[in-house]
């Protein structure tokens, strides 16, 4: 296939393509964590659930030859982890941040353990829609090869944003997250809502993991995640628990992740490690800029342990 030389256009194109490709797991994990945190729990275990979801999706997709069944299985596994997290956190004195860290270690370890036989085999990939069909340039076509999960993720972000504002279930979650007493007064059991929210959040995070192993990079191995789960939790806080904000932040982050190799490809090679650190630096800078002792409390769910 003859590729044309697009020179410096390679960089913005890579950022665009990367923004779409790399952001998708962030979208799912941050949307999932938004649901969980809106209900007043923080689930730091999403990193481990993401890895476990990646492994499950790959394994089941390989065994059944269907990537969609793989995703379904991954979401089920994620939901189980979420239920466990939600169940164990409702006991008094159990620290949900610490449980999250434990889930992170356990989920990752368990995923590596079960995933050993699946490092070599090839699993079928998720389909992508060629949004770049109008272009003759193969690079544009490749950048605009949008995976269905990205589109579903965008739709999900809009749906969640609308649902938090306008539906009964959205209101219930928000009340539980703002004040457990008010929720009880309404006749709602806060623990149960948090349990289900955590399960839903974890299921979404696991789907994000499935995207990693079934589309991009499209392989299961033990280095599949480089902190995506944790970054996504940071994104939730930065975007003020707003699903649309999560979407925007995830896309921004994805673009930043693609920066390093793209810059190298146009000749900016010095200090490439530092460019690879760009996403982390960006996240940190944004978190610093958008937090302040007074402001973080505004907009945060009142029951969230990190804001108390």
């Amino acid at each position, binding site marked *: 296939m003859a590729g044309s030389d697009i020179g410096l256009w390679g960089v913005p194109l890579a950022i665009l393509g990367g923004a779409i490709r790399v952001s998708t797991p962030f979208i799912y994990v941050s949307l999932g964590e938004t649901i969980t945190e809106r209900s007043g729990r923080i689930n*730091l275990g999403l990193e481990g659930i993401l890895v476990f979801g990646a492994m499950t999706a790959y394994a089941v997709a390989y065994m059944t030859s269907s990537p969609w069944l793989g995703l379904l299985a991954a979401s089920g596994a994620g939901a189980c982890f979420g239920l466990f997290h939600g169940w*164990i956190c409702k*006991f*008094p*004195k*159990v*620290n949900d*941040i*610490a*449980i999250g*860290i*434990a*889930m992170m*270690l*356990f*989920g*990752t*370890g*368990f995923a*590596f*353990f079960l995933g*050993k036989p699946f490092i070599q085999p090839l699993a079928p990939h998720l389909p992508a829609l060629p949004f770049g069909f109008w272009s003759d340039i193969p690079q544009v076509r490749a950048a605009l090869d949008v995976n269905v999960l990205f589109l579903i993720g965008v739709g999900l972000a809009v749906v969640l944003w609308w649902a938090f504002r306008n539906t009964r279930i959205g209101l219930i979650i928000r009340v539980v997250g703002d004040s457990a007493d008010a929720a009880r007064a309404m006749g709602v059991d806060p623990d149960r809502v948090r349990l289900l929210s955590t399960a839903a959040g974890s299921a979404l995070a696991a789907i994000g993991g499935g995207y990693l192993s079934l589309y991009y990079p499209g392989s299961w191995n033990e280095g599949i995640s*480089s*902190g995506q789960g*944790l*970054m996504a*939790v*940071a994104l939730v*806080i930065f975007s003020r628990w707003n699903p649309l904000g999560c979407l925007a932040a995830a896309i921004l982050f994805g673009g930043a992740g693609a920066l390093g190799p793209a810059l190298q490809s146009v000749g900016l090679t010095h*200090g490439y*490690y*530092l460019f*690879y*650190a760009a996403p*982390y*630096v960006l*996240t*940190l800078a944004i*978190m*610093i800029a958008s*937090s*302040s*002792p007074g*402001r*973080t*409390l505004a907009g945060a769910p009142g029951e969230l342990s*990190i804001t108390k």
Partner: protein
Amino acid sequence: MSEAASETAFEAVGGRRGGNPRAWIARRAEGIVLPLAALFAGMVAFSIFLLVIGKSPPELFDLMWRGGFSSWFSIQNTLSRTAPLLLAGLCVALPARLGLAVIGGEGAIVLGGVAAAAIGGVLGGSGLPGPLGIGIMALAGMAVGALWIGSVGALRHYRAVNETISGLLLAYIAIAIMNHLVEGPLRDPASLNKPSTRPLEAAYRIGSIPGTDVQWGLAVGVVACILCWVLIEKSSWGFAARIAGGNMRAAQIQGLPVGPLIVGFCAIAGACAGLGGMLEVAAVHGAANASLAAGYGYTGILVAFLARQNPLAIIPVAILLGGIDASGGLIQRRMHLPDATVLVLQGMIFIAILFSDTFYGRFKAFNPELWTEKA
């Protein structure tokens, strides 16, 4: 409000309201029996898991014993792995007493190691005597580590940035900086296929404790644990820190210097981790390179939580985890289990320990306050 708050804070630091020796023993026992019970529960859960996958729990635990503890060779293996875990555990435990969950110790270890190697390279050939050079390297490592984790504390207090996330982000950034420095400005041209800093000269290397194969870092770690325990339990700063950890707002209202406490303790925690990095460079590798990012920071999280953030308890816990790690290879080779098996065991123990938190104060046997109710 402030009276109730200060009562809670008082309890949080273990304030005693009676001098009854039986009560004293009961309270202390709780802190030992519950973690041990949780450890046991974790191992039982793991055994069930093994049975489900068709492996033999007795065989595994026997191998764990043999690989970690049963011979002088195994014990030394365990102790070698314990050394970095002690300091990594302190890096998590100290801020935790203040109520902060800082898990970015890996970054401080890595940058502390690089700083020590860089200073060691500069001093090399200057004729500075060995112990002095080692001392300066240690200070360099500690300073850089203190800066790194101290920043996490500062961000938390002055900008309300969640310390778990910022710590982890800084860890990733630290590893990127380390890689950049080790392959670039600080690189030893002779280190061809394994980019490293210049190897430290022999006088600046740290050797083994005489008669053993275990490097002196073990002793340094133990001393650090003891010093930190004294700091937390016996000093006024530690007292203030524990009050702040029990109820931050109450502490602020009472006028405790919460900001300096947070930054200070985080800095000390970072210094411990940075020292750990320096020891890895001086005692194990002889130079700084990518192998410094060995994950000790993350295992340190587990050590600290298992030890319930008590610096003295970190010593036996680090030995236990070192032993589990040491036996990992044997388990892999003999039972044909993946190396992740050890991670699963550690994860199960971790969850069990955290779950056991809920039982504190619930059992009558351990709680003298409930004894009077019987009458």
